[in-house]
């Protein structure tokens, strides 16, 4: 509809003029022909003289063929009409997924009357061209398009599909980065730390600043290696693809700086995207607990029931957590869960304890 605003009035005039013959042929093909043929056939059968039998035969034949012809014409004509709107008004009217013949026929029958009205107004009152175009397009959209409800559901479907594609692409990207770092920077750091380690071991006992420099460099290389490992494993652990969520969570729980009790009961594997998000949820939630909660214990429970994967992370900290913009990462968790139609719930009264519950679809 917005496109119609920008259209010049001569295009609207041309559009409505082209609409005239189309309106007439639509009315004839879908209305006059089948009804007329049936009427003539009936009349001939009842009243025609014996000498007019051949004519009666033609009418009957026409009455039999015309409805099929009309039905075939309905779709084609609708397509032609839609093309008229796109070419002359720039208004794209998508064809309905399931052809709604009743609405199409209604449009073709109506067009006989609306087309001349639109044409006359467009020619006589060029300043009203935009309104004509709008009204004409609205009518066509309502009767030739998929209908409001179907259009929305088509839109929802395409959004859901593109969102799933984005989630999968993000996931694939994380895997790629993990793999690149594993094969590249990490191996180089190991090699560096190993060489410095050999130098340090070889020169053990040698006093002096050169030795101290080697020792410092070695210590730093080892620390860099540990930091890199932590980062890379957080991206997307290979064991997650390989052995699933249960296996991957051991590492997360073991590396948390506070004691974590882990209970996982997921007999059937979920989709890779959902597993990656569940892993991320636990990892991020535990990071959050260790940074902000002041907790002494945390508990992670993951189980699957009724086609949903339920992840619950509890801590005995001070509570008062929120998804507000305080950099706690909880908002990121909520967003990632929502990206796969999951839910996120945070229960964190001041004074604790805090419980994060995330449910993700895990098809049966």
């Amino acid at each position, binding site marked *: 509809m917005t496109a119609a605003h920008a259209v010049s009035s001569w295009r609207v005039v041309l559009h409505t003029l082209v609409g005239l013959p189309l309106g007439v042929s639509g009315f004839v093909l879908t209305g006059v022909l089948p009804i007329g043929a049936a009427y003539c056939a009936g009349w001939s059968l009842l009243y025609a003289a014996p000498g007019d039998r051949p004519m009666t035969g033609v009418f009957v034949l026409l009455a039999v063929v015309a409805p099929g012809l009309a039905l075939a014409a309905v779709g084609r004509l609708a397509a032609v009409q839609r093309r008229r709107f796109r070419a002359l008004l720039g208004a794209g009217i998508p064809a309905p997924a399931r052809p709604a013949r009743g609405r199409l026929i209604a449009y073709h029958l109506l067009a006989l009357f609306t087309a001349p009205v639109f044409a006359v107004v467009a020619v006589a009152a060029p300043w009203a061209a935009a309104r004509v175009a709008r009204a004409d397009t609205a009518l066509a959209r309502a009767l030739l398009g998929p209908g409001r409800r179907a259009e929305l559901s088509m839109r929802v479907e395409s959004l859901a599909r593109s969102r799933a594609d984005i989630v999968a692409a993000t996931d694939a990207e994380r895997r790629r980065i993990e*793999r690149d770092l*594993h*094969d590249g920077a*990490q*191996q*180089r750091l*190991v*090699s560096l*730390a*190993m*060489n*410095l*380690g*050999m130098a*340090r*071991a*070889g020169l053990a006992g040698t006093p002096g600043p050169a030795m101290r420099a080697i020792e410092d460099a*070695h210590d730093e*290389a*080892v620390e860099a*290696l*540990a930091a890199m*490992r932590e980062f*890379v*494993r957080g991206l997307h*652990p*290979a*064991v997650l*693809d*390989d*052995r699933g969520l*249960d*296996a*991957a969570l*051991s*590492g997360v*729980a*073991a*590396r948390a700086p506070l004691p*974590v*009790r*882990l209970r996982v009961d997921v007999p059937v594997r979920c989709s890779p995207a959902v597993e990656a998000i569940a892993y991320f949820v636990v990892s991020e939630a535990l990071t959050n607990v260790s940074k902000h909660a002041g907790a002494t214990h945390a508990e992670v429970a993951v189980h699957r029931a009724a086609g949903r994967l339920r992840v619950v992370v509890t801590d005995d900290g001070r509570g008062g957590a929120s998804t507000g913009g305080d950099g706690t990462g909880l908002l990121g968790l909520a967003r990632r869960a929502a990206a796969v139609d999951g839910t996120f719930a945070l229960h964190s009264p001041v004074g604790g304890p805090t419980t994060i519950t995330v449910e993700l679809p895990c098809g049966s």
Partner: protein
Amino acid sequence: MRIVIAEDSVLLRAGLTKLLTDGGFEVVEAVADADALLRAVAVHRPDVALVDVRMPPSHTDEGIRAALVIHHEFPRVAVVVLSQFVEERYATDLLSVRTSGVGYLLKDRVAHVPDFLAAVRRVAAGGTALDPEVVAQLLVRHRSDPRERLTPRESQVLRLMAEGRSNNGITAELRVSHSAVEKYISSIFTKLDLPHTDSDHRRVLAVLRYLRP
């Protein structure tokens, strides 16, 4: 001691070869994937094989699977598995076949040359060497939790035992007296209902059997 290395990174293969040669090992062959490793082990029958986990073609757990094949087919060849990440599940797989002559360490550990060489020698001699990280993961996975009854010091000792350290090793690591370590161990064994044993290897076995989920 004769050793075969399997590592797909050219850089690390060369580095490990140098490190082990300098450390007194005879590197009989260094290969880049699991198939070549199994062939090399069959040909050379080394004392120990040093194996990377992620190798071609799929870059997932080739090294673990190769180690299990070696355990089955060449029971006299010890295996040290090296990886950028250690995973409790891989450790459980590795230890499912046998608990002697097996090691599973982070690649980070090669930076501490004397410790690393000692760990490889220990495994080659029929001992075990589990990375502290993987021991921590095994502890997390243990379901019933009488561990909570262990004191922090006892947990430390249990961890070192699971890594394959001897009493002397634990004494040195914790800087406590020999008799104190013996007291901790005795207390752990009592609390965990484990049989008292002297051999390091059987101790590790007992601990691991206990830890395994």
